[in-house]
């Protein structure tokens, strides 16, 4: 038994070195050489070169008091911290009959409809529901579509211009059939700001 325990201790240490130190560090080195952009979180940069986020991590486009900024495309509701808090990922975890969730959805639907000047029936599901990560960078093309008019008006841009920009940042189903088509809000809003410069 004593021998088995010694073997167990040594085996644990040897495997920890191989699998817990060598493997992750070597892979980090390789990743930094061949895929530096992805390995470092797919950063997006403004035209002046500053990093303004990651194309993978959603951001809040609200003012300090939490009101949505009308010149930006709005992302989905977020349950990560106060909203898009990247150090506190997570979903609402509210069930299908949760009174809080039901009230929140109804309120969001009304607010989004009036904010964008559309009918409540035009507001798609992803606009009124929080994602699992709370950091979803994407919205559905339907949610982008109802925001085009508002953003164009706020920015004094022709509607067609904004619409074509949305098109440009819409990703179809991968390989034509995997996943859902989506619009990356972070990239789209950055492109809008860059347009102004």
């Amino acid at each position: 038994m004593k021998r088995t325990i010694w073997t167990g201790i040594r085996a644990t240490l040897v495997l920890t070195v191989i699998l817990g130190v060598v493997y992750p560090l070597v892979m980090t080195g390789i990743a930094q050489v061949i895929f530096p952009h992805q390995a470092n979180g797919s950063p997006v940069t403004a035209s002046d070169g500053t990093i303004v986020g990651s194309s993978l991590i959603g951001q809040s486009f609200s003012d300090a008091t939490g009101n949505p900024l009308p010149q930006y495309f709005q992302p989905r509701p977020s349950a990560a911290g106060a909203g898009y808090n990247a150090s506190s990922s997570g979903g609402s975890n509210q069930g299908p009959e949760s009174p809080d969730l039901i009230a929140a959805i109804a309120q969001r639907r009304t607010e989004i409809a009036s904010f964008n000047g559309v009918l409540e029936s035009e507001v798609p599901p992803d606009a009124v529901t929080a994602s699992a990560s709370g950091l979803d960078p994407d919205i559905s093309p339907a949610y982008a579509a109802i925001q085009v008019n508002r953003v164009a008006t706020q920015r004094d841009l022709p509607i067609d211009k904004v619409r074509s920009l949305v098109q440009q940042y819409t990703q179809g189903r991968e390989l034509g059939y995997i996943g859902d088509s989506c619009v990356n809000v972070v990239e789209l809003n950055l492109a809008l700001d860059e347009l102004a410069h």
Partner: protein
Amino acid sequence: MQWVWAITSVATVAIALIVVYRPLGDYMAWVFSSTKDWKVERAIYRIIGVDSHSEQSWQAYLRAVLVFSCVGMLLLYAMQRLQPWLPYSLGLGSISPDLAFNTAASFVGNTNWQAYSPESTVGYTVQMAGLSVQCFVSSAVGLAVAIALVRGLARKGATTIGNFWVDLVRANLRILLPLSAVAALVLIAGGTIQNLTGFTDITTIAGQLQTLPNGPVATQEAIKMLGTNGGGFYNANSAHPFENPTAWTNLFQVFLLLVIPFASPRTFGKMVGDHRLGSAILATMITLFLAAYAALTAFEYQGLGTAPQLAGGAMEGKEVRFGIVGSTLFTAATTGTTGGATNSTLDSYTAMGGMVSLLHMILGEVSPGGVGSGLYTILIMAVIAVFIVGLLLGRTPVMLGKRIGVREIKLASLAILVIPVLSLAGMAISFAIPAIHHELVNQVMGNSGPHGLTETTYAFVSATINNGSSFAGFGANTPWLNVVLGLLILLGRFLVIAIVLAMAGSFAAQDQIPTGVGELPLHSPQFVAFFVALIIFVAVPTFFAVLAAGPFAEGLG
């Protein structure tokens, strides 16, 4: 049209699994049958003091499994308690004793139940050298035990079932490590991060401060999926864009989860020199998996329930890039293996969708089950199936030339009782203690009423059966739950392993009965249908009461 996406997605994964089925299955059989050691393995055996050509009785094998797991647990516990003094701890503090125990038990038991939020609890050293290492070695333990059982079936009149240390080292070095390295690279190419940068602060487009949590994610992500572990680098697990950035990495992760468990029947067939029972097992696994996937997808597409109907679709807790199908396929894979990773919040699924995830675990984790554990669990079920078929046909119950005798059927019966008895007893005791009852209802449950009961049931089943996924509104980080769920994880894992190894020893000691006339037709479609029905009827009725009071009450109410 929706169903086209549902079918093409699962077909893509299926084709990939079919392509690797034979090569990977045969390769794994070779790994555990080869008599030659690699150079690096010889060096390891020298360091740890093991003669790679000596073999162990089932008792010695079990002792080695338990000692190794115990040492791993102590080390992981110590690392968490001593976190502030470890390098790359990112300023995170020492983890409380009950949570550290729970997490150590959870990762050593291949469960990866996470009562903590990783980004605010564990630094890089604990993630890499602690949690990630257990992701590797705990699935290697599962694989080793399954292989020991297969050896028992393949041998005749033998007193030994292999050498645990050799199986452990080979499973890690020849299977899990190379596959993980390749998988990690693929994930990184898709956008999963891999760095040691810590937290970086950026000013967002709208001028706010955002703190991005970096880390060596891809290397853990690869083994998290491949080893059917499920312990995420982040709280949001595979929903987090830094873990699972795109729709195709999502399908790739599903593939990683399923690849070893689905190739295991091939390994089994190769090692016993008869692929017929292996094929029947594979067919059974596929049938159950597809049924769960179809039901989940149907319920989520249908989107019943007040909130989903008000929203116009069941998108609460789902990511836009995955959509419904990318979420339900992942959930079917994670509840059918002992994966436990999630890319959508099960808590917000429709009542019936949530019930299917729970039921899929309750089936015993055999569709296709965890790495190693899927194969040994379904072989135990096969022992029971063969016994019953033998009784029905009035023939001696014989499986692969091994008689299913009193000892074997006793062990198998004991094994199938472990999970329901432990999980339901754990739950009943918790509700029976007034203070704990109060805590459960008022603090722990994230939702009230039937949904809260489903959350609780899910937690106890998930821990005991070593899945690790959760209805995450269930705030499990309390001293009572940390200790109880930690114990359930350990008992659910190691009691079953002990029974499996005892059975391996008992089969190995038997002589082989010559097959031929009077052989039971264990490869016929009728047997597969019977086997599927048996798995369902053994598992589900035990849980019928809680299912009725939980998801049924919610969905039909």
